[in-house]
Structures are given as structure tokens and as C-alpha cells.
């Protein structure tokens, strides 16, 4: 009983829903503010993402007449649940050492849920505009999932077959050639997963918002925005734990960990602001061909390094 309540607390308050949402809204403010400054504008005030969510909660929900009602209404929550579990899991591992063998695989599965939810939601919208976004998002997901998994495999090889996130976080694979290759590739895949330029083909963050969530409004739209904000917490965290040596819980390692998280966030923002959008087939070619080759090379290097004990490979 106590344990159930404890679990509920962890999932809903800390480090689960409330904590992740707060951190996520702050992270999305950082993204918007930095983008505005780069464009010589002032940008939004600090609590703007929170106001956006609150406002959306107060609006009507309009459902297209031909939409698949159940799917339309349910999938934002599915996506939200996926990210929530991922974030809770990652933070618990950092704070309370509750890692288990194979948790990295569970994390990879959970990461797919938000993208799947977006695809299902937009195809349930019964709108031609959303349909365009659906097909593009599907292609994009097919594009980057494989390189992402390959990148993690590189790390698994480098750490000598560890499938336990807490152990992996003890290493810093990015400080090697294959690890750096894998890190950069994973970074770009995360860029695509977050729907940031140059891979925001399915939905644009600025005013030209056609595509996957065009038919959503009100509280459902708020759910999508929340999901996106939480992904801004969970995914860079994941990258930090796998590639950059994880998060400490107190003192210097904590500050260092926060620094690493901020570094990943800054990299995402920089890439976002210095590139135009790419076409979908260009994106797929980029992920399958270029990233694929880079990762095959990385796997080979990592295997050699692991076999011969050369850590910088």
C-alpha cells in the first residue's frame, strides 16, 4: 500500500509529472527566448509556456466530424504517458539507483511512443492537411529510428555489453571517435524526434502550423504541447546518461550534470536556428545513408576498440 502510494508520488509529483512539466516548460522557454534573440527580437516572458498551456486548457475542444473519435481523443494521453514514464524512469535511475538490466531497451521503446501517438492522432483527424503531415512524420520516423538504435548499440559495445543505464552512465563514450560519431548522430535523431528545424517537416513550431496537429484544439492541444515540453527534458537527459556520463545527485557532479544537459539543449537550439528546413526525402537520405554509414563505421571502431581495449576508438 505504502509502496503503491510511493510509486504514485514518484510518477505524479517528483520526479514524474509535475517536476518534468515544470522543467520542460522552462526548457521550452529557453528555446523560444534564444531563438528570438538570434532573430534580433526580444522574445516571450518567462512563464509564457505555462500561460499557453493554461489558456489551451480553457478552450473548447473541436473534433472533426469524420474523425475516429476514440483514437483522436486517446492518443495525446498515450504520448503523454510514454514520455512521462521515460522521464520518471530516467530520473529515478539517476536519483535512486533503480536501474535494471535491459532498461535501456525499455527506454528506447518508450521513446517511440510519442512519435507513434502523433502519427495516429493526425491520421485519425480525417483532414487532408493532417494526412500530408502523417505521411511525412511516418517517413521521418522510419528514417531516424534505425540510426538511433545503432547509436545506442555503439555505446553498448563500448561499455562491454552493459544493458543497465546506471552502469552506462558511469562511462563517457562520447570521448572517443566512435562514441562521438554516435553522439552526433543521436543528437540529430533527437532533433528530428522533437520536431525541430531542420527536421520539422511534419509540423512547424512557428506560425505556419499545418500538418499533424492541425485539427487539435483546447485541452488536447495542451496535451501535445505538454508532451513536447516533457520530451525536451527526457530526451536530452537520455543522451546525457548514455553518451556523456550521466547526472550526479549532489555537489559537483550535479552541477556538472546540469551543465551537460544545458549543453545538449544549446546544441539543439543552435542547430535549429542556423538551418533551413529540408525536404522529406532529403531527410531520409540523410538518416539512412549518411548516418547509417557513419554508424557502421562507429560500430566497427567500437568493436575493435573493445576487443583490443583501446578506449579512444
Amino acid at each position, binding site marked *: 500500500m505504502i509502496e503503491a502510494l510511493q510509486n504514485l508520488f514518484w510518477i505524479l509529483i517528483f520526479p514524474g509529472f509535475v517536476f518534468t512539466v515544470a522543467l520542460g516548460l522552462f526548457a521550452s522557454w529557453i528555446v523560444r527566448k534564444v531563438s528570438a534573440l538570434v532573430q534580433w527580437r526580444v522574445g516571450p516572458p518567462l512563464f509564457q509556456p505555462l500561460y499557453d498551456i493554461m489558456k489551451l486548457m480553457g478552450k473548447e475542444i473541436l473534433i472533426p466530424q469524420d474523425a475516429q473519435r476514440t483514437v483522436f481523443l486517446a492518443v495525446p494521453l498515450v504520448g503523454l504517458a510514454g514520455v512521462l514514464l521515460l522521464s520518471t524512469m530516467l530520473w529515478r535511475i539517476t536519483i535512486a539507483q533503480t536501474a535494471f538490466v535491459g532498461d535501456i531497451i525499455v527506454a528506447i521503446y518508450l521513446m517511440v511512443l510519442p512519435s507513434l501517438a502523433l502519427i495516429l492522432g493526425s491520421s485519425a483527424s480525417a483532414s487532408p*492537411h493532417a494526412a500530408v503531415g502523417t505521411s511525412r512524420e511516418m517517413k521521418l520516423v522510419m528514417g531516424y529510428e534505425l540510426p538511433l538504435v545503432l547509436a545506442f548499440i555503439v555505446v553498448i559495445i563500448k561499455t562491454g555489453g552493459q544493458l543497465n543505464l546506471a552502469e552506462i552512465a558511469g562511462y563517457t563514450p562520447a570521448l572517443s571517435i566512435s562514441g562521438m560519431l554516435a553522439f552526433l548522430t543521436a543528437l540529430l535523431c533527437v532533433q528530428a524526434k522533437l520536431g525541430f528545424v531542420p527536421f520539422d517537416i511534419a509540423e512547424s513550431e512557428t506560425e*505556419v502550423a499545418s500538418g499533424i496537429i492541425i485539427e487539435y484544439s483546447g485541452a488536447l492541444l495542451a496535451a501535445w504541447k505538454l508532451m513536447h515540453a516533457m520530451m525536451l527534458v527526457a530526451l536530452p537527459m537520455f543522451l546525457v546518461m548514455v553518451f556523456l556520463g550521466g547526472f550526479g545527485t549532489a555537489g559537483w557532479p550535479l552541477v556538472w550534470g546540469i551543465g551537460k544537459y544545458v549543453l545538449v539543449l544549446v546544441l539543439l537550439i543552435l542547430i535549429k536556428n542556423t538551418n533551413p528546413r529540408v525536404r522529406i526525402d*532529403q531527410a531520409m537520405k540523410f538518416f539512412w545513408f549518411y548516418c547509417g554509414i557513419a554508424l557502421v563505421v562507429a560500430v566497427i571502431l567500437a568493436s575493435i576498440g573493445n576487443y583490443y581495449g583501446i578506449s579512444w576508438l
Partner: protein
Amino acid sequence: MNQQELNNRLSEIKDKLIDDIEQKADNRIFLLCEAENSYAVNKFLFEDVPLRFLIATGIDSDDCFEVLYHYSYDQTGCMVTLKAFIRDREKPTIDSIAPFLPAAEWIERETHDILGIDFNNHPDMRRLILSDDWPEGVYPLRKDAQIPAQRPDGEPSSRPTVQSQSPARRTVELSKPVVVVGPFHPLQEEMEFFQLTVDGEIVTDIDMRISYNHRGIEKISESLQFDQVPFLVSRICGICSASHPLAYVNAVEELAGVTAPDRAQYIRVIINEFERIHSHLLWVGLAGHFIGYDTVFMWAWKYREPVLDLLEEITGNRNNYGNVKVGGCREDIPNELKPKILKELDKLEKKTEMLTKAVLDDPVLHARLKGVGILSKEDAVKYAVTGPTARGSGVDIDVRRDNPYAVYADLDWKVIVQPEGDVFAKAVVRLLEVLESVKMTREAIKKIPDGPITVEVKEIPPGEACGCAEAPRGETFHYVRSDGGNRPIRHKVRAPSYVNVPSFRASCIGQPIPDVTITLAAVDPCYSCTERLAVVDGHSKVLHDYEALLKLSREKTARIKKEIGGPEFKLEDF
């Protein structure tokens, strides 16, 4: 051919096809004929002489209908108008000239809509400018038109009704938050502004519906006094708002036989050239936005602001200046303002030169815009396009030189022409025109004489006259007819976009989809025109909308940039 030779040429068909030739002035000729002969005369004028087609005007005179076909002979700046009289008031018909003159297609559809004249053999007599639910048989520009007082407010028929509980919601809390609405996005209807039919990646056909902006200006003009009309016509299009009143005033001053004082003419030139500068910069910004260079967009619109501020200091408004009146100008340019204007012009010239150089040198822009949306010279003539659209296709016409008004004949400037006909050529034309405008304005500011800015006009005698002006988009043409009273009895307005826009049929067909937005933008139509866009495949299934096409366009730019490795515009460079 000089003027005398032109007169001789026109006399050839006298007594055979036309009944009379009236020479109102050296360069204003009116040919009179009956409706039965109009086809032959038009063919002669367009193909044999040849003249440039401007527009056609339908008029409801008391005992007959008239259709006026206006032509221009650019070498001497002569305007030739063919007046075709339709005697049958019950069932007015005339032969369509669209089979050999595509530029006439739209105006004949419009004349049918507003006057009820039938055009035989017109390829496509669909409704053009009146709304879908406008009743049949009500022709607004007829003198006896019965405009329904209770305007028809039809619901769009093809769309299922929307049930929203909104009216009751504000007083009922906690009601079900979920409502059911129609399945389609509101901006997607069958009657889209632009509708492209595609086969795979290539555009095979393009259609346009322009009723959304129709406000019935020509009819409103008939109810205003001559002096009030400039305020009306400056609101035809926000960004040509100095050119329309100037063309109208040119026509009325010709009719009344007055000339505005020199200082007023200089002021008119200065205001018009400022408008050209900020309109072209607006276009540059939009073009950049379409192909993904958002820094160019923000740069161009940032540098428009000083020009708009100057205009506000002179006339009191950033747009819609209200400065031109019959007989002169309303607002003077204070002499204390001159140094500031010259300083701003210098700054602007520097920045525009940098941008022009950057555009001319950028390999990505070359790859993105060269060879795209080509409008050949023959098509440019057939569709009677004007302005940078024409000059970018090698057609050397410019009203300021061919049919000079105000003081353009006294200033030192040149017409910019590029032969290629693609979007790149039109961009170059516009950028170089900005530099020419800066030069012209500088000269005008230095040379402006002192004196009065208005001359009194007592009355407008009966008669008719044509006036034109070179708007940023091309030639604006106004035709005014008066019966001696206070108001025009017919005022025909032709905006340059009216002839430029249909040329899409020639330039867009055969283009791949990502190039559509930039090809459409190259004509520089009003911004709201290009917002409504849809792409359908052969079976009328909507594939893309405007935002999607915008993305495609920018993606292509990014792809080209990757392949070429071109430089990125940095805001700090400017």
C-alpha cells in the same frame, strides 16, 4: 512607325470596318465601329499594326451598349481606343476576341458579369468577379440595375453544416466541452483562389477565382464626385495606393484641359518613386520568405520602415497618402525635410547596392531562381503583361518613358530590361529599379521648383479621357467619361495585376510543384492573392495547401544550398 505613319495605318480600314476616327489629341485616337466588325478591327489592331492591348471597358449608354477596347502604341505613347456599339439592348452580344488574345479572357468574363453582354465563342464563360450566390440576371453596372437590398447570404453548399454550441456557452459552464464540426479545414474549399492541377510533380493546369476582393469600386466611383474619387481608388490596392489616384487624375486633368503646377508634378514623382522603392523591397522580402531566406525577409522589411516614416512625415500616413487631387497636390514637401530625405536615400542606396550584389553573386539563388517560371516574350505580349513582369521577359515598355506624365521626361533615368523571363530576371529588374528610383528621387528633390502646388479646376466638361501611371507592378490604366456633371458616369479601372496574374497559365504550367509559390510571387500580385492556394491532382483531390507549398519551396532551396554550398545571408553584414 511615327505618329503620322500610325495615323495612316489606321485610316486604311476606315470606311471598310470602322465608321469614324476621332482624334481627341495628338496621341489619343478613338475609332468608332459597329459590334459586328469589332472582331476584325481588333485582330487588325493587335496583330497587324501591332498595338499593345490594355483592357476593355463595357459601358451602358442610354440607347446602346458600348464596348471599348483600349490599345497603346508605345513608340509614340499613343492610345488607340476602339468603340464598338451594340445596338441591341435586349440581348447584347459581341464576338469574343479571346481566341487570338488570351489577355482578353478575363475582362470579357467580367464584362459579362457586370453588364450582361454575351461574348460569342469565348472559351470559358464562367463567373469571374461576382460571388457564387449572386443572383442571375442582376447586372450591377447597368443604369437600371436592381441590386437586391437583402443581399443573398448563401451558406457554402458543399460543406456539411457546422454545429458549435458557442452562442450558449458563455453562460453555461461545465457543459460538454466537446463539439462536432465539419470535416474540412475552413480554408480549403472547391473555389480556392488558385487551383493547380498536377500530374505527379508537374503542374498541368492552373485556375483562379478572384471574387473575394471585389468591392464594386467602379460603381461606387459613379456615385462620388470627381474630387472624392482619388480617396476611393487609392484603396484599390494598398501598395499601389499612389499610382491609382495619379492615373485617375491624369485622365481627369486631360479631360478638363488643366495642367498641375510644376512643384506639384515633382511632388507626385517623389511620392510615387518612394512607393516604388518600398513596394519592391516588400517583394524582395516576400520572395526571400518563399524560398527560405528569412533573414532577407526581415532585412528588406526593416529597410522599408525609414521610407514609410518619411512618407508619413510628408503626407501623414504610411500608406494611402491621399496626396493627389485633380489640379495638383494636397500636401507640400517642406523644404526643411529635404536634407533628411537625401540622407535616407543615401543610406538606402548603399544597402540596396549591397543586396543587389549579393543576389547577383549568390550561386544558390542562381540555381533556385534561374530558369524557373519562364514567361517567354511572345507569351508576355499575348497576355499583355506590364511592369517588371514584362520587362523581366524582354518587353521594353515603361509608361514613364513611353507616355510621360508628371516630370519623368525631365529626369535622367533608364528603363531596366532583362531578356531571360525567369524569376531571377524579374528579381534583378526590381532591385535595379529601386536604385533607379533612388536616383530619380534624389534628382527631383534637388530640382524641385518653388511655387503653388495646386491649380483651381472649375468644372469638368463632357468627354472622355484615358490616363495611366506606372505602378510598382506595372501600368495602371484609368478611363473616365463625363457628361458635364459632378460625377463620372463611367470610370474604368485596370490594375496591373489584372493582366499580370493570368499569365500564370503560361509560366506555371510545366513547372514542378516546389517552384509554384516563387513563380506566382514573381508577378508580385497583392499579398492576399497568393495566400489562398491549393494543389489538386487530376481527380480534384487536394494534395497540398499554401503552407505545404511554401515548405516545399524552402526545402528545395535548402537542398540546392547543400549541393552548392552557397553563402548564407547574415543580418550583421547589413
